[in-house]
């Protein structure tokens, strides 16, 4: 609360400049996508590729309209979003708790760190047959796979960040009567917060990665299914649309997490 109040007091005159700087950054970020779009349109128009290899942007827009009309677009997006959200929540929570335990307590680190490091070395797709065998082909295995994907980056960054909190600050906290949970929430977690949020964003990105892996293999809905289905039916326009949707959704989720981190940074 104090930080943002201070910003408001001292930065009132600068806020206008800051807003235009942010707009400038936003515009700079749009340059490459717009160039890519123009190149795409030019390539499709010049007939370098056949329409089944590279449909024009307009064809992809038409595919959007078609899927919306059939009521399928929202369904695919919603189910994929739900899987990522649930899987990420589960994987990130377990990653936070186990990362904190391993980072803060040497005995726990000695006990768990080597095994978790070994599990991390297993490629994601190696889990799929086992998950299908144990959990069937419904929602269960997909969410668990996303959770596995989200877990490792969160666990790794949190455990490393909490193990390296400035011992001087920890001692000062102890000298002022903090210990256990108080020390964790007032000194250790705030100190590690930037790294923790970087880990959460990496975990979220890896969650989307693992989602597509899960949906490619056994599903009847979702963006991964849309990818494999459009490949099988030769609908390159829908294939491109799925890729664009994954990029858009991943970026949006990441931006939301970034906003949340900035909000929390202001609140401490």
């Amino acid at each position, binding site marked *: 609360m*104090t930080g943002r109040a201070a910003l408001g007091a001292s930065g009132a005159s600068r806020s206008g400049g800051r807003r235009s700087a942010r707009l400038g950054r936003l515009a700079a970020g749009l340059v490459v996508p717009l160039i890519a779009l123009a190149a795409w349109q030019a390539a499709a128009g010049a007939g370098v590729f056949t329409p089944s290899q590279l449909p024009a942007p307009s064809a992809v827009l038409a595919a959007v309209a078609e899927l919306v009309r059939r009521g399928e677009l929202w369904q695919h997006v919603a189910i994929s979003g739900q899987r990522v959200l649930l899987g990420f929540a589960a994987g990130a929570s377990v990653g936070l708790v186990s990362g904190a335990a391993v980072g803060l307590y040497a005995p726990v680190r000695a006990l768990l760190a080597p095994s978790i490091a070994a599990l991390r070395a297993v490629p994601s797709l190696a889990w799929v047959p086992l998950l299908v065998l144990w959990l069937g082909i419904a929602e269960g295995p997909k969410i668990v796979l996303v959770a596995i994907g989200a877990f490792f980056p969160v666990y790794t960054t949190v455990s490393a960040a909490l193990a390296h909190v400035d011992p001087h600050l920890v001692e000062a906290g102890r000298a002022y009567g903090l210990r256990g949970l108080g020390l964790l929430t*007032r000194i250790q977690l705030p100190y590690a917060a930037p790294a923790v949020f970087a880990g959460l964003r990496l975990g979220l990105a890896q969650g989307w990665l693992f989602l597509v892996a899960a949906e490619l293999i056994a599903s009847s809905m979702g963006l991964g299914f849309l990818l494999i289905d459009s490949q099988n039916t030769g609908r390159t326009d829908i294939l491109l649309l799925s890729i664009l949707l994954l990029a858009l959704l991943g970026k949006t989720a990441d931006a939301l997490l970034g906003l949340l981190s900035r909000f929390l*940074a202001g609140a401490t």
Partner: protein
Amino acid sequence: MAATAAGVGLRGIGHTFGNGHTVLRDIELDILPGELVAILGPSGCGKSTLLKLVAGLETPTAGEVLVDGRAVRGIDDRCAVVFQEPRLLPWRDLAGNVALGLPKGVGRGSGRQIVGHWLDVVGLEGFHRHRPRQVSGGMAQRAALARALVREPGVLLLDEPFAALDALTRLRMQDLLAEVQRGAGTTVLLVTHDVDEALHLADRVVLLDTQPPVAGATVATVLDVPWLRPRDRAYPELAVLRADLLERLGVPRPTPAEETTP
């Protein structure tokens, strides 16, 4: 100040680190409530360790620390520590950092008032909302002093608090400490390697030193500095004590041949 000054008793204190290195042995010392005692000694002689033992940050391997007649077990909330570095939390403003020192059970409103009061006392009015990295080292150390003072400690423990500051800031901070101590009346245990600082501030100077071949430092000398504060740094009597202390610390007087003054 609500809390009353507490006396400190060191009874046969000895400390050996986990690696077998003995830093302190057989330390006997009584500090009266409201007294300002400076602990002086060569670097590495265990001055800071002694302070951590009083604060309860570490437990002595021999003997007992008494604060106000009661043994120290674990972190003691009758003590407040100022370290050599400010050790402020970079994500909190100065007021937020000082609030960390508030004793448990202080309400939000009165806490803010106490924090504001002590920040003003240490000369940081107008800087309550600044982050630690926006202020100078001297100001950060003032905030660290305020963080200790809001605790209204029975004993204020200062671990070379001005050592990292530039010479002029150090002198100002010494005067500030003398003033605050006079106002609050709290007991102060000041660890320093600066003979002038000890003589300017302390009622008594305790010299720690080792006596080889016995391992571990112990009390070598206790020196009374019987003049009232605030003291003039140019007191001739202080100069005599200063030369004496420096000699005990291994910095002898120049021999007459080297003296150029008539």
